[in-house]
């Protein structure tokens, strides 16, 4: 079970109260009518599946019902930070993987 800090409620709650909504920071093409099929396909369907640091979207579904971002290590499941929508993560993966 995750113990997740909700940045809106300002306290830790059990994972049972939250819903996971996949990868965070997916930018919608600003002009969908004139973007290429590849750009639209990447936006719609293609997601990262990193081993290590991952930025993801969570929803405090049974609590305040607000969305927020989580930086999580997919290997250890450790949550590195939570931050509000519109903010940028402080913890990011190394540009060049160590291995």
């Amino acid at each position, binding site marked *: 079970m995750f113990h997740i800090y909700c940045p*809106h*409620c*300002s306290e830790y709650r*059990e994972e049972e*109260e939250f819903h996971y909504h996949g990868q965070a920071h997916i930018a919608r093409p600003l002009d969908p009518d004139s973007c290429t099929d590849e750009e639209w396909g990447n936006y719609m369907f293609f997601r990262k599946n990193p081993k290590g640091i991952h930025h993801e979207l969570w929803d405090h579904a*049974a609590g*305040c*019902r*607000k969305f927020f971002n989580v930086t999580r290590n997919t290997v250890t499941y450790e949550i590195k930070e939570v931050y509000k929508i519109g903010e940028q993560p402080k913890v990011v993966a190394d540009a060049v993987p160590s291995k």
Partner: protein
Amino acid sequence: MSDVKATGAEATSVPTKVVMNQLPGAGIVGQSPLHHADLETVAKNGPKQGGVKFKEQKLMGLLTLRCNAQNPEQAAVAEKLLGVALPTTPLTSVEKGDTSVRWISPDEWLIVVPGNKAFALESAFFADMPGHYSLVNVSGGTTIYQLSGANVKDVLKKSTPVDIHDSEFPVGKVVSTVFAKSSAVIRRTGEQSFELVVRRSFADYLWLWIQDASREFGLVVEA
């Protein structure tokens, strides 16, 4: 409605919101979601002593307000109409007279007033509240359970993952959370008393759950 072209006087008239009084006339008696359980008879014939006390606070007026408490105009009007300022600290509640206000999220509050005062409060909000906001009467979809007694925390521990230890859950704190696979807004109203705002459609299920979870401590029903 954007393609409807208003003409003449309509084009300049201010749109008015129609507020429906959800209470029928005085001749029609309201029935709470636990009406079928006949809690009056259960209270009369049931045990008078036990570790857990249960009471349905019936037919209250519940209003969900969404607005911006950082907007001084909205905050001032809300305070004027409620008699108390909207609580802006997460997970807190305020109470004054027969009005209570629970923090639900940074831009959402749950207001509870006596059932016969909800319509007047709604109407006052729609008359006075400026700017972008939403006020919805959710009375018909909810009911309130009062749980108290020496073992009330033991029952809550079986039912919700929220930490209700005194250091984490002081009197006045309010949380929206899961309760027995359903959801509830739980507020601590005293050292040994909690209030649960529950969904109408889960009212009977949760009443059965509470009876079962309280059995080992003895359940006293009050009406």
